[in-house]
C-alpha cells in the first residue's frame, strides 16, 4: 500500500485550473521525482497535499487515512512535511530553535529541553551544528536549505516534499545538499522531489512522475521517462539524451 495517495484532485483558482484530475501515489521509502514545465501545477500539488489549499474535488490519503480536508497542522502531526522553493525559516528564532519548534509541535509533543536536544542532533546530522545560535538571516542559501531539511526531520516526518531543493545551487553546494538528501533517504525517509534540473533528478530518483497542465502525463523509471515520446516532445526535448 502506498504511503501517499492522491486521486483525481482538481483545484481551481478563479478562472485558472491548476490541478485537473491529478493522480499520484508514493510508496513508503521511495524517492520519487516530480518534473514538469513551469505552471504545470507541481507546487499547487504540494500545497494541496500539505493542506494550504483544499481541493475542489478528489481525494488525498496518507497512510490509509483520508486527509483531504484536514487542517495543515494535523497533517504535520501525521508525518507530512515540506521544504519551500524559497526557504521560509522563522527569522525571529535562532537556528536551533527553528528546528526545535518543529520538534515541539510535530508528531510528538515535546518540551523545550527535549526538543532542543533533538534539534542539536539533527543539526549535526545535516552538518549545520556550528551555526546553532545564529539567526537565519545570516545563513547562506545552502545552509537555509539544510535548515529546512533538519526542520522537516524534527517534525518526525515520515515523508517530505522537497520543492526545488537544488535551485540556485552549483558545484560543492549542490553536492552538499544532495548528499544530505541521499542520507535522509537511506535513513528511511520517503521523499518526493520537485525538480527542474534533470541531471539531479534522473540520478537520484527511483521513479519519476511527469506533470503537465495539472495532470499526470507519465509515471515510471527514469529510463522509461526519458524515452517516452510524449514526454520528450512536450517537455524534455532533445535533452533526452542526458541522464
Amino acid at each position, binding site marked *: 500500500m502506498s504511503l501517499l495517495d492522491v486521486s483525481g484532485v482538481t483545484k481551481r483558482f478563479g478562472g485558472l485550473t491548476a490541478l485537473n484530475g491529478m493522480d499520484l501515489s508514493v510508496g513508503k521509502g521511495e524517492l520519487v521525482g516530480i518534473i514538469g514545465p513551469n505552471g504545470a501545477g507541481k507546487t499547487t500539488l504540494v500545497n494541496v497535499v*500539505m*493542506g*494550504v489549499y483544499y481541493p475542489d474535488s478528489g481525494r488525498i490519503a496518507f497512510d490509509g487515512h483520508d486527509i483531504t480536508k484536514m*487542517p*495543515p*497542522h*494535523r497533517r*504535520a*502531526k501525521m508525518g507530512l*512535511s*515540506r521544504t*519551500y522553493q524559497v526557504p*521560509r525559516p*522563522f*527569522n*525571529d*528564532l*535562532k537556528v536551533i*530553535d527553528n528546528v*526545535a*519548534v*518543529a520538534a*515541539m*509541535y*510535530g*508528531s510528538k509533543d515535546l*518540551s*523545550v529541553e527535549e526538543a532542543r536536544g533533538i534539534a542539536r542532533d539533527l543539526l549535526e546530522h545535516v552538518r549545520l551544528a556550528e551555526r546553532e*545560535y*545564529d539567526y537565519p538571516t545570516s545563513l547562506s542559501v545552502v545552509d537555509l536549505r539544510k535548515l529546512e531539511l533538519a*526542520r522537516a526531520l*524534527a*517534525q518526525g516526518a515520515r515523508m517530505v516534499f522537497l520543492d526545488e531543493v537544488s535551485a540556485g545551487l552549483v558545484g560543492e553546494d549542490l553536492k552538499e545538499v544532495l548528499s544530505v538528501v541521499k542520507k535522509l533517504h537511506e535513513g528511511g525517509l520517503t521523499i518526493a522531489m520537485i525538480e527542474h534540473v534533470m541531471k539531479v533528478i534522473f540520478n537520484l530518483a527511483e521513479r519519476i512522475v511527469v506533470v503537465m497542465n495539472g495532470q499526470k502525463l507519465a509515471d515510471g523509471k527514469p529510463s522509461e521517462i526519458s524515452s517516452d515520446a510524449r514526454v520528450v516532445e512536450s517537455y524534455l526535448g532533445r535533452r533526452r539524451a542526458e541522464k
Partner: protein
Amino acid sequence: MSMNADTGKRLKLPGSMYIKAVAVAVALAIITAVSTMWGSYPTLVAITIMVFYVYSLSWSLLADTGMVSLGQALFFALGSYAYGIFVISYGMNPLVAIFAGPVLGALAGLVVGFISSRLRDWYVGIFTFALTPAGYALAVSSQLSPWTAGAVGLAVPRFPLPSTAWLPFSAALAFAAYIVIMLIQNRRIGFALSAINDDETAAGTVGINTRFYKTIVFGISGYLAALAGAMFVALYTSYIAPDYFGYPDISYSVWPVFYSMIGGMGSPEGVLLGTVLLDPVETAIRSWLSSISVTGGNLALVIFGLLLVIVLLKAPKGIYGYVVRYIESRRTKSGGRNGTR
C-alpha cells in the same frame, strides 16, 4: 508572509530573563516611591502608567502573534463595566470584582479571537475596530441602561483599600502582567507564537495549530485589557463612561498601540519604556482636553500624531529597538559571543 515585517520582531536584549524581571520590578518600585513622595497628582499619573502598561501589554501580546487589534478598547471597556456592574448591581466585593470582571474580557477575547484567527492581515484590525461602536451602542442602549446607566455613566464606590495603597497595588498588578508576558514568551507556547507571527503558513506546516493558539492569545489579551479597564475605574476615575469603548473617539483603542510601537514592541520592557515616556503626557492632554482650554490639548495631539507618523516611518521598532540595536552593535564590535539564550 508575515504582515509584521516591521512591527513584530522580537527585541531581546541579550541577557537572562531574571535580570530583566528584576530590572522591571525595580523600575516599577522606583516609579511608585518617587511619585508617592512627590505628591498626589504625580501619584495619580503613576497609577495611569500602571494601568496603561497592563493595557499596552495586552495589545503587544496580540501584535507579537501577528494580529493587530485596532479595537482593544472593546475589552478595556468591558472590564470597566463588568467591574462596575458586579460591584453596584450585584454587591460584589471590589477586591474580588477587579479580578472577576476581566473574566468577561477573556471570554469576549476568545470569541473575537476565534473569528479573527481566520482573518488575514489587516482585516483583523478592521474587524476589531468595527466591534467597538457596537459595544458603545450596547452600553447606551435602553435595554441595558438599568445596569449601565446609559450615556450618563456609572459612578462606583471607593475602592476598599487605604488610598496610599492604591499605587503599590497597581504596580503589583502591572508587575504580574509583565510576568505573564515573560512566561508566555519564554515557555514552549512562546515559540509557537513567534513562529506564527513570523510565518503563519510555515508554522502550520510544522505542526502548530495556529487557529488554536491565536484564539488562546486573544483570550489572554482580553483578560489583561479588561483588567486594565477595571483598574482604570477602581483606582483612577471611579467612573465608567461608554466612550471607554473607543467610540466615537478612538483614543482608547489607539493609545496602547502608540505606547507599544513608540516604546518598542516585541519586548515587554520596551512597552514599559513607551508607557512611562508617553503616558504622563497623554494624561495631561486628556485633562487639558476636558477642561476649558480645549485647544491646547488639540495642539498636543497634533504633535503626538506627527510623532507617531515619524516613529513609524523612521524607527518601526520603536525607541527600545534603537537601544537594543545600539547595544548589540557595541557587543559584536568588542567580539562578544552571541549568548546562550
